[in-house]
């Protein structure tokens, strides 16, 4: 007769699948998951673009491209936190707009105001995230609706206050954050500030996802009930995810002021682009699966795709169509891969219990529900 606790008594357990094999084998296995495949996709796209347009291979051009893509990658990482916990943030684009317009109008031509206004922007971003999170978790309104309402409210307010036209022009020192960089660097010529910000944030995000917070966030996305029963306070966990998302949108907004200027249309559609990037990065909508850097890589692959289309001479009007097809194909492939990846593990963990001779209704000592 099999004892249900037998595997625990044998002492050492088999290593987790992620820890098996040599380092090279592990990288190979990782690249086969949707979260790893996106890095392969980025590499393939870069090579394809360089073949189509050799100028893109110049290190200076590459790093400028990376700098341009940084805000959307940052937004995607913010959206990742929300999506991996099983929610949506549709208010992201409106938050970007709000922050851009705030920066434009409050900073003006006064350099001394940069620091206080930036603090205020971060504060506003935090407040928006807290509201999104609390309404979602405590009032139990689906996050799709909460953030949709927030999007309508914020974008309506911004357009009401600005009259729908471009207003305000922040001082050049502030725009340098998005536009400038460390100059006179050998080989690459310039390291854009946005790229530095992105790198710092990416490192912080990876560290955060390795901490208990990140682990419980993924657990909450995978199975909120189990996470709750194991002592996670769901409302506080998810609220912090929403705050991270609006803060990411705020930082993306600060960078975007640099080269997009101040206009109520900056940031429009950012939420869908960010969600697309996250999903391209192999993160599962509905939560519980995916890596934060894959989300950033998803943003890069999306932008690279546009560059590739441009350098192939595809009319810009077809961009949407190609983007739509790519998303569908990528997600279809990813969902298949996650399923294939799960199947053997699941059967290994749950072997069919052998029918015992004494199948009288004696309750199993390990279960409380009494079901066999």
């Amino acid at each position, binding site marked *: 007769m099999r004892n249900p606790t037998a595997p625990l008594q044998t002492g050492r357990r088999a290593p987790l699948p992620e820890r098996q094999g040599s380092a090279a084998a592990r990288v190979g296995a990782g690249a086969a998951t949707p979260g790893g495949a996106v890095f392969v996709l980025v590499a393939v796209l870069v090579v394809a673009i360089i073949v189509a347009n050799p100028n893109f291979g110049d290190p200076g051009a590459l790093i400028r491209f990376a700098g341009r893509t940084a805000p959307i990658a940052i937004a995607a990482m913010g959206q990742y936190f929300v999506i991996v916990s099983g929610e949506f943030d549709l208010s992201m684009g409106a938050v970007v707009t709000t922050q851009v317009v705030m920066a434009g109008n409050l900073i003006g031509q006064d350099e001394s105001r940069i620091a206080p206004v930036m603090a205020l922007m971060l504060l506003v971003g935090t407040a928006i995230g807290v509201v999104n999170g609390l309404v979602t978790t405590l009032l139990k*309104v*689906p996050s799709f609706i909460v953030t*949709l*309402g927030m999007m309508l409210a914020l974008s*309506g307010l911004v357009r009401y206050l600005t009259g729908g036209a471009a207003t305000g022009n922040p001082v050049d020192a502030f725009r340098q954050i998005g536009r400038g960089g460390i100059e006179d660097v050998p080989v690459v010529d310039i390291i854009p500030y946005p790229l530095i910000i992105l790198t710092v944030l990416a490192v912080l995000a990876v560290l955060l996802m390795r901490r208990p917070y990140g682990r419980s966030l993924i657990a909450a996305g995978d199975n909120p009930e189990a996470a709750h029963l194991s002592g996670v306070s769901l409302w506080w966990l998810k609220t912090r995810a929403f705050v991270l998302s609006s803060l990411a949108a705020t930082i993306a907004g600060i960078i975007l002021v640099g080269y997009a200027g101040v206009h109520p249309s900056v940031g429009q559609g950012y939420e869908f682009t960010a*969600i697309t990037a996250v999903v391209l990065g192999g993160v599962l909508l509905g939560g519980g699966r995916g890596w934060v850097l894959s989300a950033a890589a998803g943003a890069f692959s999306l932008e690279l795709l546009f560059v590739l289309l441009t350098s192939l001479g595809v009319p810009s*009007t077809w961009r949407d*169509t190609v983007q739509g097809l790519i998303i569908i194909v990528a*997600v279809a492939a990813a969902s*298949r891969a996650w399923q294939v990846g799960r199947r053997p593990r699941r059967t290994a963990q749950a072997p069919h219990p052998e029918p015992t001779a004494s199948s009288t209704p004696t309750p199993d000592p390990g279960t409380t529900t009494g079901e066999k």
Partner: protein
Amino acid sequence: MNRRLTSTGIVYAVLLLSLVVGAVLTATAGRNFFSTGNISAILTATSILGFIAIGQTLVILVGSLDLSVPYVVSLTSLVGGTVMGGQSGNIVAGLLAALAVAAVIGIANGLVVSLLHVHGFIATLGMGLVVSGYLATNYQGSAGSAPRDFRLIGATQIGPVPLSTLIMLGTAGAAILLLRRTRLGHHLYAVGGNTDVARMSGLRTSVPVVAAHVLCSVLAGLAGLLLLARLSVGSPTIGSQGGYDLMSIAAVVLGGTLLAGGKGNILGTLAGVGIFAVMDNVMSVMSVNPFLKDVIRGLVIVVAVAVYARRELERRPARFERPSTLQAALEEAK
């Protein structure tokens, strides 16, 4: 059983409340809310969003979403308009062509969702982008024209009730019958509630998903044709301007349908559409700044859903019920 209001009941209470508040506010602006002109204006406003929201309800019930509706609306208005080309004899051909295009998009959506296992959000977002790229490439501006006979559909009124609203209500009735009386309708609820359980009970889970997506696209196509009848030309931006994707989802959720699927009904959705129409009407009468309208809309959506989202959860039965008396007796016997 204590008789508490069902969620649909609450939605209608909210609709009633918005009517009362609307009447009072309109009166303070010195206008009559219940004048024939105003009532028919409100009813006209419900028809377009009504069609789309009915379709969206079916899709949401089955556990998916449809973000491609605005582009379907634009595309069908263009296809219908160009096929009709101002000739009364081509009306039927135009209708069929437009609805066939919509149905093909719906089938594609449904197959991607059910067979490729792509989340409805992404599948229809992608399909919407595909159609939007096609629209941007092939149509630079308005195209086609609706013949006079077809324009009458948009202009005819029976008493204060526009014909378009009657068609919409008829469609709603058909959808209600579909959900309550047909096998397909029950399967929609079953698959939306729990796909795995539905499959293990012997359903082909892909059939209801595809059917819901096709119906949703065809209804969006009807909305596009109605817009064509009103504007008399097809326009490539008419759908995305209206924001029909998110507004229809909001109306459905406002009507008490669970976004996760499996629970909800058409009546609630109609009330949700009605609330939006009354709100918009009152705000235009009060000449509220159009940008502020969005702010108010956003707040109302969140607050209204918050009111009953919590009740729904309270009413949900406990997960682990206490053992029944029979089980307790059995335990005792041992």
